[in-house]
């Protein structure tokens, strides 16, 4: 049985969600491992969402936003740009491997790019194996 990663994807409405839609309407085949949650802007992604996804069992988290300069709300993606490196440092200190959480800028016209990102991330997370977080926390409660 090959391990099938469960990846949660937060996509901003205006660029990256539209880009993902384009991949679909273009009938591009790509890995089905990302469960998409649409938000209006990548600025909406509270670091809490990423941590909660991991704690609840996600093997990876993908965040997509508009390219810098193209944000529908002008500056939203810069907020994500500032948050993300700090979040990665925190995750590293908690033992979450680098490839499990990823930020990509995907425009509305980049259907193929979206598919490529998903395929690439799925393989990287597959190589890492299931995320230990949920199992660890359950084990902590069951045994000391």
């Amino acid at each position, binding site marked *: 049985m090959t391990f099938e990663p469960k990846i949660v994807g937060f996509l901003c409405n205006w660029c990256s969600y539209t880009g993902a839609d384009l991949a679909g309407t273009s009938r591009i085949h790509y890995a089905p491992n990302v469960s998409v949650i649409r938000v209006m802007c990548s600025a909406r992604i509270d670091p*809490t969402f990423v941590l*909660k996804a991991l704690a609840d069992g996600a093997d990876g988290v993908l965040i997509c936003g508009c390219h810098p300069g193209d944000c529908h709300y002008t500056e939203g993606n810069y907020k994500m*740009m500032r948050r993300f490196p700090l979040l990665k440092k*925190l995750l590293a200190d*908690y033992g979450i491997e680098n490839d499990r959480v990823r930020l990509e800028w995907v425009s509305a016209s980049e259907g193929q790019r979206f598919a490529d990102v998903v395929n690439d991330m799925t393989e990287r997370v597959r190589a890492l194996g299931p995320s230990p977080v949920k199992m660890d926390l359950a084990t902590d409660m069951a045994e000391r």
Partner: protein
Amino acid sequence: MADKKLQLAIYWGAACGGCDVSILDTNEFILDVDKAADVRLWPIAADGKYADVEAMDDGELDVTIMSGGVRNSENEHIAKLLRQKSKIFVAYGSCAYMGGIPALANLVPRDEIFTRAYLDNPSIEPGNQTIPKPETKVNGYDLNIPDFYKRVYKLDQVIDVDYYVPGCPPQPDQCKAAILALVAALTGQADPPPKGAVVGAFERNLCDDCEREKSEKKISRFYRPWEIMQDPKQCLMEQGILCAGSATRSGCGVRCPNSGIPCRGCYGPAPNVLDQGAKLLSAVSSIIDSQDPAEIDEILETLPDFTSFANRYGVAASLLQRSHRQ
């Protein structure tokens, strides 16, 4: 309410005693507590022992106030015993509520704690490669000490907690307020707070009560507290000095920022916040004045070890709870 005094237990888990000190820092108020209550267990100050608690009926204690988290088997055992015998159980202080400073140990493997304490240490007796064990035999005598768990747990991860009093330690006037609220509830003079409530603190963040002047926050670098002479009147974050106040519940009196020292979050997260560190992360990144990834990285270099600020007092309460390094 007859002559029957309230039956009270005050206990500590993996604690430092500061919470017990905070109760005594209520000064004369402790005499009022003495008049109203029989303290059946309080190892730091009074009578009562484990056998006494074991002999009680379930629910015989009106209130247990427990500080400290769960680091070993004794902490867990007595927490469960007291829960069984108590009507109301209060998790008192940051350790009981969130794991506290000892929960920083959740970021390192258990083995390394032992290695650093007993083996790889400049002071250890040359040639002494001994590590303490839960069960040992010395000259035919059976000896035991508690099992040291692989991580720190906050109290509500091992028992059902009714109320939380935050702080490291809770400030004495808040301690007094919390005890008075409980007494009023137990004696029918007032409705009890909703179960699971945080008592002895406010429903707002430190910034709301901090006296410093706040204006626009845009910084081009962070400063460690010793790197500059700060302006005592201006918001610390605006000066580039990391302060956790924006992600921390108020109730402490803002003693630290008012004394020239940044907040480190001991009163825990604001209401409805799942992860105090995630909120602080958002706050800190939001004041970085840059739109260039390379520059952002450089600015973040001036803020080392953000992880230990994120959940300084609450690793056990954070969403990830501990390191998951395999």
